[in-house]
C-alpha cells in the first residue's frame, strides 16, 4: 500500500532490526532517559564528548516502535564525530521536517531522509522525535549554556541522571 510503503521504507526497517549505537560507553559524559508518556516508549541515551566539543560516541537503548528505534539509530549514525553545534543544527532541521517543512536544498541527510514519510502519519511524529528530544536534554545536561538552544516539548519527558 502506498502510504505504508512510504512509512516503512526498507532503510527504516534495517535500522529497526539492527540499530546503531548498541555498545555501552565507558564513563559517558552524560546519560539521559527519554520517555513518551503517550505511548510508553522509552530511550536511554549516553554521549561522550571530547575536549574540542565533538561527540565521540553515542549509545542508545531504545524500547519502542520501529519508527522511534530507527530514528534513534539514525541519530547515532549521523551525529557520531560531529560537533555539538552541528548536532543542534541537524536536530533543528529534523524537527522542522517533522513539522511539515522540506529538507534544506543541497545537503545530504543520508538515511534520515527516509523518515520524511512519517509526517504523513501525524500520530507517529512523536515516535520519530523521541530520540531528538532526548538528545536536546543530553546536550543541555552536558553544557547548561546549550539549554537555551533546546525547546521543551509537552508530550515527551526526559529524565537526567
Amino acid at each position, binding site marked *: *500500500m502506498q*502510504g*505504508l510503503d512510504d*512509512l*516503512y521504507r*526498507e532503510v527504516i*526497517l534495517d535500522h529497526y532490526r539492527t540499530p546503531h549505537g548498541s555498545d555501552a560507553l565507558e564513563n559517558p559524559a552524560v546519560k539521559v532517559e527519554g520517555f513518551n508518556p503517550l*505511548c*510508553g*516508549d*522509552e530511550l536511554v541515551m549516553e554521549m561522550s564528548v571530547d575536549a574540542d566539543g565533538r561527540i565521540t560516541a553515542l549509545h542508545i537503548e531504545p*524500547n*519502542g*516502535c*520501529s*519508527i522511534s528505534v530507527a530514528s534513534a539509530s539514525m541519530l547515532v549514525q549521523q551525529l557520531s564525530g560531529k560537533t555539538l553545534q552541528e548536532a543542534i543544527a541537524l536536530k533543528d532541521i529534523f524537527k522542522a521536517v517533522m513539522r511539515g517543512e522540506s529538507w534544506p536544498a543541497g545537503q545530504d541527510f543520508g538515511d534520515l531522509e527516509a523518515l520524511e514519510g512519517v509526517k504523513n*502519519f501525524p*500520530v*507517529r511524529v512523536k*515516535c520519530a522525535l523521541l530520540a531528538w528530544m532526548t538528545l536536546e536534554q543530553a546536550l543541555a545536561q552536558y553544557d547548561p549554556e546549550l539549554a537555551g538552544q533546546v525547546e521543551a516539548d509537552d508530550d515527551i519527558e526526559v529524565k537526567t541522571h
Partner: protein
Amino acid sequence: MTIDTEAATGASSGSAELDVARIRADFPILQRQVHGKPLVYLDNSATTQRPDAVIDAMSNFYRTSNANVHRGVHLLSEEATDAYEGARAKVAAFLNADSTQSVIFTRNTTESINLVAHAWARRHVRKDDEILLTVMEHHSNLVPWQLLAQERGCKLRFLDIDEAGHLQLENLNEVLNEHTRLVALTHVSNALGTVNAIPTIACAAHSVGAKVLVDGAQGVPHGPVDVQALDCDFYAYSPHKALGPLGIGVLWARRDVLEEMDPFLGGGEMIRDVTLERSTWAAVPHKFEAGTPSVADAVGLGASIDYLEGVGTAQIRQHEVKINEYLLGRLRELPWLTVYGPQDPRDRCSLASFNDNQIHAHDLGTILDQHGLAIRAGHHCAKPLMRRLGVMATARASFYIYNDLDEVDRLVEALFEARKVFGLAT
C-alpha cells in the same frame, strides 16, 4: 449473577444468536470507509459506537424537551426532569439496584471512583488502614487510591495474577485482614479480558469488614450485571462503552452506604438549605450531583439500555463467547503472536491483547489502520499490568455486538499483511 457463563453457553436460555447484520444496520458509522476500506471497528473497549436510537433520543430531547431539570415550574422543565429521572430508573433496573435513588450520575467511571475516594474513603479510611487492589487495575482504579494513601497514610496492597491472567484467589486471605477497609477491583480487565470472580472476592472482603468497589467499565458492556448478586458495595461504569453517550458515568452504591457519605462536589442541585455561613445537603442521590447535569446524555443512556435489553444481555454474552472461541482459535494459528489473558473463551470478554514477536504494537496499529481496522495499541492505561507481563505495550482488538466472525478473519489477514510490510516470514 456475575457475567453469566451459563447463559453464555446457551444451556439455560436456548436463545437465538444475534442477528449481526440487522444490528449493524442500526449503527450509521459502520457504513464508513477508512483509507478506502470498509471500517472494521475493533476498539470497543475504548468506546463503542452508538445506534440511531441513542443518537435520535438525544437529538429529540434537544429538539423537543430541552430545559434545565428540577425545580422548574414550566412544562419543558417537568419533561426534562422526567426524562432525566426516568433514565436513572432505567439504570437502576438494568443493574438490579436496591433502589433508584442509589444510582448517581457522574461524568465517567473515573469520576465515579474519585467520588467514592472523596466522599466515602476520606471518612472511613485512616492511617494504617489498608486498601486492597489488584495488579490488573486501570489507572482510574489505582491513582485515586494512591492519592488517598498519600493524604491519609493508609497502605495499598495488591492481589497478583497467575500466568494465565487470572487473579490469584488462593492468596486472597494473605492480603486481606482486619485492617482492610476497601477492596477495589475491576469486574473485567480492559487489557487481558479476564472476568473476575466478584462474588467470591466480595464474600472474603465482607468477612473482614471491608467494603467492595467494582470498576464495571468493561463489565456492563459484556453481559448481564446484577449488583446485588455480585454482592459489592459500589459499582462504577461508563455508558459510552455500552452504546451510550460519551460524557456521562454511573455510580451505584448501596443505599445505606450512600446515606453515610459526605458530599463530593459542592454547588447547586446538591443542597437542601444554604445560608451565608453553611449549608445542608439534599437527599441522595442529588447530594452527589452538584451543578446542572448532563440531561441529554442521561436520555441517550436510557435509550442505550433499551437497545441493550432489546438485544438481550444474555445473548450479548453468548455472542461474545462465540467471537472469543473463533478469535482465540484464529490467533493461535499465528506462531509469531503472543496472546495474553485466560485461554478459556468463557473466562474473558471479547477482546484479545497480543504482541507480534517482531513488530511493535504501535506499528501493528498503524498498519491495521491502513487496512481499515481500528484497534488500540499501547499500555491501555494499565502500566503496572504491562510491567507485570514484562512488556511495554500490547495490541488490543475488542469486539462488540455489531462485530462478526468475518471481522476476525479481516484482523488475521491484516496481521499477515503486517508481517509482509516488515519482510518477516509467515
